[in-house]
């Protein structure tokens, strides 16, 4: 069994007006940063996954994203997995 850290990002779908993002964008422009635009605000979820391999870990996280972490009506999600290597192990 391996241990992974999943880094999940959930954000509003592109078709949906992100009012928080728009407000932050206006604030950036008022701070004289006109080069910054298309601000999108989402959520970041970090969690630990126990799985025999990376494919199974992906399945588990994908399932969690579909069932709970995101609402497919209004949000998209993406994630990356990082295998956690036990520290202090003596060979």
């Amino acid at each position: 069994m391996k241990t992974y850290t999943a880094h999940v990002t959930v954000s509003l779908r592109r078709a949906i007006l992100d009012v928080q993002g728009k407000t932050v964008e206006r604030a950036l422009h008022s701070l004289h940063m006109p080069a910054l635009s298309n601000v999108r605000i989402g959520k970041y979820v970090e969690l630990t996954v126990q799985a025999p391999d990376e494919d199974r870990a992906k399945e588990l996280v994908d399932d969690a994203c579909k069932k709970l972490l995101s609402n497919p009506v209004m949000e998209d999600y993406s994630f990356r997995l990082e295998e956690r290597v036990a520290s202090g192990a003596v060979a």
Partner: protein
Amino acid sequence: MNIGVVTFPGSNCNADAEFAAALDGSTVHRLWHKDTSLPTQLDAIILPGGFSYGDYLRTGAIARFSPIMQEVIDFAKKGGVVMGICNGFQILTECGLLPGALIRNANLSFACKDVYVRVENSNTSFTNSVTKNTVLRIPIAHGEGRYTAPSEVIEELEAEQRVVFRYVTPAGEDSPEANPNGSLHNIAGILNKAGNVMGLMPHPERASDPLNGSTDGLSVFTSIALSRS
């Protein structure tokens, strides 16, 4: 008539909903989020407003998995009358009994005020005691009430007259100024396809006694009772 009112951790309009539901002499059954069965004689279930589970993750996202919700879903699938008010509406969209989603108000502000809604369809279990185009004054209190759904869903809702309430001016016009949260098509309340499940953002229970300043919300409760008599 027997009405069940569900209390989730974080519900804060359950007592008001119980009060309004009992006004016509109905028996109110208090239901708890951990319940795994319903009283057998129930005619209708109300999911009240509030901040179930602290609105963590998304509004209604956690409440949807409460043990009682499986019972509510089964009850609705068998044709039972279910009304979700505010957070209850958000829970109904999260669990799939109603289409679409409720997201952050367009102006990012929590909206807490009286609004005017027009009855778009009086041929429902929730509006049969008033005539079509009646304008009701009912309070709202929400930060996430902007109704959104894919355009084909909105078209279907409109074509099937499943938009029950629409935000309007006091004179009854659905202008952008009358829209308190940026909802598509000024939508304040919708029905499911079968017509037995309704969700609405305004709080009819908070307009059910002269002391509230309006009794326009009573018609919703009266209609539910009429539909079952």
